[in-house]
């Protein structure tokens, strides 16, 4: 059992070379292993081919990576939360990224990308139009299709296809495109903005859509 520490004690001891630092690092490593194991426990489907021993080893590897990230970022801790809550997020971030990439290791994103250049790919992904459904539902599908085909850039269309329609995790897309989360998020944000403006230019706002989709969805 690790000893309780205040935020200030964590920072001070992690920065002080010697026995205090060694003990603080060991305590921190232990809680990071638990955070990583918790993350894997909640996402076992991502690691279904792994033995329990392999999962534990992966948790320890991720905890070690998180520990290094934390020590490199200590100056950024401003005390706006408990130190341990702040530290957990590094372990969760690294573990979840690792788990998602393991799950998608055998999937060819090249193939998914190639599909996005073919005519009519989108119609295979959108839900079938209900002949009896409200006219606005058909209109929304039409606007979405036209905007994706005609107004998005190639990069925006690709990221949208991979993440929204193929449900590829962000970190897998980040690795595939050799970029970072912020850049991918911006592509998605810009795509959403164009789609929103298109819908709004046809008089479709949140209230109408919730009524007409939510009621029947």
């Amino acid at each position, binding site marked *: 059992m690790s000893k*309780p520490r205040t935020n200030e004690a964590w920072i001070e001891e992690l920065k002080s070379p010697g026995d205090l630092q060694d003990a603080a690092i060991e305590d921190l490593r232990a809680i990071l292993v638990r955070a990583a194991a918790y993350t894997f426990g909640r996402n076992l489907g991502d690691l279904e081919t792994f033995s329990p021993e392999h999962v534990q080893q992966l948790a320890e590897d991720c905890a070690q990576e998180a520990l290094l990230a934390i020590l490199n970022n200590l100056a950024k801790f401003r005390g706006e939360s*408990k130190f341990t809550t702040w530290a957990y997020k590094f372990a969760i971030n690294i573990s979840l990224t690792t788990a998602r990439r393991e799950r998608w290791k055998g999937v060819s994103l090249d193939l998914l990308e190639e599909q996005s250049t073919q005519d009519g790919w989108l119609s295979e992904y959108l839900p079938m139009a209900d002949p009896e459904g409200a006219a606005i539902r058909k209109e929304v599908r039409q606007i979405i299709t036209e905007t994706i085909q005609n107004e998005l850039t190639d990069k925006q269309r690709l990221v949208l296809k991979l993440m929204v329609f193929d449900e590829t995790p962000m970190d897998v897309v980040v690795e595939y495109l050799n970029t970072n989360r912020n850049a991918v998020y911006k592509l998605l944000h810009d795509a959403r903005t164009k789609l929103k403006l298109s819908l709004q230019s046809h008089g479709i706002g949140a209230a109408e859509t919730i009524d007409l989709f939510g009621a029947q969805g």
Partner: protein
Amino acid sequence: MDETKFTQWINKILTTEEDEISCSDCFDRVSEYVETEAAGAEMDDALQQVKQHIHQCQVCFDEYELLRDLIQVEDGHDLLFDK
């Protein structure tokens, strides 16, 4: 994509804000966000932006959800490391 997911996605499109914080900014503030939320305390503008981001960003939402649940588990098992 089934009808339910399509509806959820359309609603995400329609709730897009002109300015949304990045994943890095969300990561910087998410620990404060989960503790503020757990305490039922009022959120300032910066934390409202975290809320908007995790509504739109699946991976940041997944990390937020794990962090939120983990601190509850740790508290529940009396494994407090901060006093």
